[in-house]
Structure formats: structure tokens, C-alpha cells
């Protein structure tokens, strides 16, 4: 590697050899102005409207697809026997997996004191919430009678029936609804001080009211900050076991069944790693165009892209271990249905999907992400993030479909063919997700200003400057 080139690069901190987390020439006010201006400017960029139109079209397609679904029932989808789960569950697992990176960035990296996370935590959390919105829709729609979805909750009713809490599907209801609630609360609480900044910088009366009410009267009191910091830390500490439990519980939906290809103990860690893998890919897919479009290269730097590449490399290898272990167990279990399932998954009529997954999740990323040059090449990382997103969708396709369509008895074998309504629903959630994200970046501060301030020079208190009896000037600041 060309170390001289790196030394002379102004984006590299010479003391550590790492990329700077944020560019050197920023001040409290410049950072604040930059972030608040994106929201408070009366001029919405025309590119935003173009994307909004595109995403709005997608969301409209979703509304059409769902209306028809409500009128006709799940028969319009490709789900049938034996492939009873189909796109709905594939999309559910895919979307909720994407959400996991947001919680990882905002909670786990906070506990590990990875301060580079500060610039990307807010929009990664927003991504989590919108992904969970898209995910949560699918199991309910898949119920057949979605308007009775509330039967999943334990409430006293005139039928005197209650849910069955030994079922992983009930665990799933608890896990996903808790995850949605805690993510939203964590996101909002994290935003309160910034909403105070927005209120104080707003020019128009409507904006003053809007941010004034949302900020709840935040004024930065030292007492408030201490309780706030305690609550943030506790929420991070609670969200960490939560995020690990959510995909674990989702993997139980599969692993508790006796179906070959599902009934395996590797599923929980392999699902969690896969979730984080795809989630970081989605953060990159969103962050790279965002930093370019809004000129945030000083705040979301090469360091972030580089670090996310490293996380993807690590989780990608855990996923690779999961794939390897599935193949190994198919052989080692000496169960001929397991062995057949694996053969069918690789070389059966839908074997192509397995090789798409191997190419997108293993072959391309795990060979290229070693290179720092490629990890900091913005266009390469953007393309790679799309590839991994697609690969992880195919992973869920492989798990759901290739396990279901040929199980124990050849007499019950069938096939699975998604209908255009399936594709419209999936494409529609992509539109809805983008739409919600666009609204978020237009109306809320997408980078946490109060946390960015902590990354700037001069925020650390020097003990000799605050000792009583001397003033800052005397102590020679």
C-alpha cells in the first residue's frame, strides 16, 4: 500500500493513520447551520421532488396491491401448498433484517464508545423504523383476514379465547412490536435536543410551532442533560439485547419447525449476522447518495464508509460460516431428507437462486472488502451495497422457498411461482420506505447535532481550567 500517499492525504489523521471522523475545519455553528439548513430552507431541491414522485408512485402501487388483496384475499399471491409462506415472509425477514443495522449503530456502537457512529446514527435509526413499518405489514397481510390481526394480542374478549404462548409466532408478535416501539422511542428521545436547536433556528412561524412542540421545551439544562444521558445509555443497553433477540425469535419461526432446511440450531446467530450484514448494506445504499446530494462529505466521511465495509466483512464471514454449517450438517446429520434438501437447494429446479445468493453475499463482497482502496471507493461501495441487499433477499428466498416446495414426501412436492401482485407488493414497500425516508430528511435533522458537537475539538473539559481560584485565562487555555 502507498503509505506516503496516505500520510499526505488531509482526510487522514496522522497520529492514528485512520480517516478523520469529521473534517477538520468545522465549528459548532458551522455544523449546526449545515444540518439545520437542509431542513429549514424554504427551497426544496428539485431532485427531492423527483425522487418523491418516484417513491410516491411505488407507494401508490402498494396501495393498489393491498386494496386488491383486501378485496380478493391472499389467493392473489403465489402462496399455496406446499409453498405457503412465499414472498410475504421473505419480505418480512428481509425488511426487519435491514432494520437491525440501525439499532446496531445507535445502541451497540454507543455502548462500545465508537464515536464515529454519531454522524450516521440518526438516519440509520430512521431507516430501522421505516424498515420495521414495511416488515410489520407482511405477517399481518399474510394472515388471510388481516382485519382480525388484533387477535394476536392477549386481551379479554367475548369469545373467551387467548393466544398460545408456546408458539414462536406469538414470541414474534412480542419481539417485533417491542422492537418497533423501542426503536421509535429511542429515535425520538435522541432527537429532542436537536429539535430544540431546530426550534431556535426556525424562521417561519409554522416551523417554530412544529419544532417547538416536538422539542417539548428542551433548553439544555445540565440536570436535564444528565437524566437524558442516563436514559439514552439505558435505552442503548436495553436495545442491544432486544435487537439480538428479534432476529433470534424470527429464526425460531423457522427453526422450531421440523422441516429439512429449517430445523437447525445455527439459525439464531446466522440470522442475526445476516440481518446486520444486509442492514449495513442498506445504510450504505442510503448514506452514499445522501452525503453527495446534501454535500455532507465533511460529516459522513470516508471513515464511515470504510468502517461500515469492515463490519460487513466481519458479518459476511459469520453468514458464510452459517451457509457452510448448513451444508456440513446436511451431510453430517446422515438424514437423507436433509441431504436431499441441500442437493435440491443447490441443483434442483430453483438451484439458480442459491448460486445468486452465493455470488452476491460471498463471492463478490468477501473477496473485495479486504481492500482499503475498494472500501473507500464510494461508487464501488454503493454498487456493492446493492449487490448485498439483493443477495440477502435471495438468502431469505432460498430459506423459505427451497425448503418448503420439496419436503419429506414426493407426493406433496410442488413449486412456487410469485404473481405480479407479489412483485407489486414488494416493489410497493420499497416505494413506501423511500417515501418515508424522503419525508424524514426533509422535515427532521438527519444528523444528530448534539452528538456531532462532541466530535469537535474543544469539547473536552481540561481539569486545570475549571479548578476554583483560577480563571481560564490564568490557566493558559
Amino acid at each position, binding site marked *: 500500500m502507498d503509505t506516503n500517499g496516505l500520510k499526505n492525504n488531509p482526510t487522514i489523521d496522522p497520529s492514528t493513520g485512520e480517516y478523520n471522523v469529521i473534517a477538520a475545519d468545522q465549528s459548532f455553528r458551522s455544523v449546526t447551520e449545515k444540518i439545520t439548513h437542509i431542513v429549514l430552507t424554504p427551497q426544496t431541491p428539485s431532485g427531492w421532488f423527483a425522487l418523491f414522485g418516484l417513491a410516491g408512485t411505488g407507494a401508490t402501487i402498494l396501495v393498489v396491491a393491498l386494496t386488491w388483496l383486501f378485496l380478493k384475499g391472499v389467493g392473489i399471491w403465489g402462496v399455496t401448498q406446499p409453498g405457503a409462506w412465499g414472498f410475504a415472509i421473505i419480505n418480512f425477514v428481509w425488511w426487519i433484517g435491514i432494520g437491525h443495522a440501525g439499532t446496531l449503530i445507535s445502541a451497540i456502537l454507543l455502548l462500545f464508545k465508537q464515536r464515529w457512529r454519531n454522524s450516521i446514527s440518526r438516519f440509520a435509526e430512521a431507516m430501522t423504523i421505516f424498515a420495521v413499518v414495511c416488515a410489520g405489514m407482511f405477517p399481518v397481510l399474510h394472515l388471510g383476514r388481516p382485519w382480525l390481526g388484533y387477535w394476536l394480542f392477549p386481551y379479554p374478549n367475548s369469545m373467551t379465547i387467548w393466544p398460545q*404462548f408456546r408458539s414462536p409466532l406469538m414470541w414474534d408478535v412480542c419481539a417485533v412490536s417491542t422492537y418497533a416501539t423501542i426503536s421509535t422511542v429511542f429515535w425520538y428521545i435522541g432527537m429532542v435536543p436537536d429539535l430544540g436547536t431546530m426550534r431556535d433556528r426556525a424562521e417561519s412561524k409554522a416551523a417554530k410551532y412544529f419544532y417547538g412542540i416536538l422539542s417539548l421545551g428542551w433548553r439544555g439544562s445540565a440536570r436535564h442533560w444528565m437524566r437524558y444521558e442516563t436514559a439514552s445509555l439505558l435505552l442503548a443497553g436495553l436495545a442491544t439485547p432486544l435487537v439480538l433477540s428479534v432476529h433470534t425469535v424470527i429464526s425460531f419461526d423457522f427453526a422450531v419447525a421440523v422441516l429439512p432446511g429449517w430445523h437447525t440450531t445455527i439459525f439464531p446467530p446466522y440470522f442475526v449476522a445476516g440481518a446486520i450484514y444486509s442492514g449495513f448494506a442498506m445504510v450504505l445504499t442510503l448514506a452514499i447518495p445522501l452525503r453527495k446530494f446534501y454535500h455532507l462529505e465533511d460529516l459522513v466521511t470516508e471513515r464511515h464508509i470504510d468502517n461500515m465495509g469492515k463490519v460487513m466483512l466481519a458479518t459476511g464471514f459469520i453468514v458464510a460460516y452459517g451457509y457452510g454449517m448448513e451444508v456440513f450438517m446436511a451431510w453430517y446429520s446422515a438424514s437423507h431428507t436433509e441431504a436431499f434438501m441441500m442437493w435440491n437447494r443447490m441443483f434442483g429446479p430453483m438451484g439458480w437462486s442459491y448460486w445468486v445468493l452465493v455470488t452476491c453475499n460471498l463471492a463478490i463482497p468477501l473477496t473485495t472488502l479486504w481492500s482499503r482502496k475498494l472500501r473507500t471507493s464510494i461508487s464501488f461501495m454503493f454498487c456493492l451495497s446493492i449487490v448485498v441487499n439483493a443477495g440477502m433477499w435471495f438468502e431469505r428466498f432460498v430459506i423459505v422457498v427451497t425448503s418448503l416446495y420439496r419436503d419429506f414426501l414426493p407426493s406433496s412436492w410442488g413449486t412456487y411461482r410469485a404473481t405480479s401482485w407479489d412483485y407489486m407488493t414488494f416493489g410497493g414497500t420499497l416505494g413506501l420506505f423511500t417515501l418515508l425516508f424522503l419525508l424524514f430528511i426533509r422535515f427532521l435533522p438527519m444528523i444528530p447535532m448534539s452528538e456531532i458537537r462532541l466530535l469537535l475539538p474543544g469539547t473536552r473539559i481540561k481539569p486545570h481550567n475549571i479548578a476554583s481560584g483560577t480563571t481560564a485565562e490564568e490557566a493558559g487555555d
Partner: protein
Amino acid sequence: MLSRNVVYGLLAEFDTADELVHAARQARQDGWRKMDCYTPYPVEEAAEAIGFHRNMVPLVTLLGGITGGALMFWLETWISVQAYPLNIGGRPLFSWPAFIVPAYELTILIAGLSAAFGMLALNGFPTLYHPLFNAPNFRDGATTDKFFLCLEAKDPKFSREETKAYLESFKPVSVVEVEN
């Protein structure tokens, strides 16, 4: 006593957190109790300086978590054993290992909600009006890049002129009177 009804306190503005913490610590040593610091990002030393060391948020969270977990475990047990017993492959009605997962999720749910709403409640939010917002320099600085120390009129040591002179001894950018 008229001043206490009209004046909320005196607000000194500083450019750095170091100066603020120094002033706050000195004021605390000089016997001030009714005071607060206002900063654009969390400054732990400022809270220490005004004598705010502990808060109730962890206790509220702990109680919320215990309540959530215990209630959910009890609900699952009551449903499965009493309200709606189902024989699933001969497994015991009180199949507690299966009940752990929802109880775990509800522990996190109620603990998290307690942490968030407990913090807001202890901070007295929402409080959309506060006298400090009347100060001309507060809203431009407190949430952006300035550091404020407010000595409040409620403190028995407070007097308009003397306190103003006292705050000016810390060489702040400005000292302004905050109307109530």
C-alpha cells in the same frame, strides 16, 4: 421581595464549557444553590459543578423492567394454566421455558418506555414555556454554541446588583436579567 416576582434570574453567557464549569463550581462553593447550567451538548462536569450527582432514571427503569417481565410471565401462566388450558402434545400446562421469550421482550419494552418517559417526566417535559426563552441571547446560543450559567432569583443570596457584579467577575461574554 418584588424582584423575585419580576426577575427569574441572571444569566451569564460564556464561550467555552471550561469557563462555564469554572464559574458554576465557584458559585456552588460560594453558597449558591438555586442555579443551573445550559449547554448545547452534555457537559458532565457542569452537572457535577452545580451539585447534581445522581438521578432517578435508573431506578424508574429498573422498576419498569421488573414490572413488565413479572406481569407478562404471570399473564402467560394464567392464560396457559387457568384461563385457556390447551394440551399441546402432552406438554405441561405450565411450560415456563416457552414463556421466557415474551416475558423477556416485555421486560425490555416496559423498561425502555420507563426510561424514556421517566426521563421526560423527571425533567418536567413537556414545558413549552420557560422564562429563559425571554433572554435575548439564550435561544440563539444555548442549543448551538454558547454556554450559560443562570443564578436564580429564588436563591436567598440573590440581589440584582450584587449578583450581577458577582457574575461579571467571571468575565463572561454578557450578563442579562431574565424576566419571569
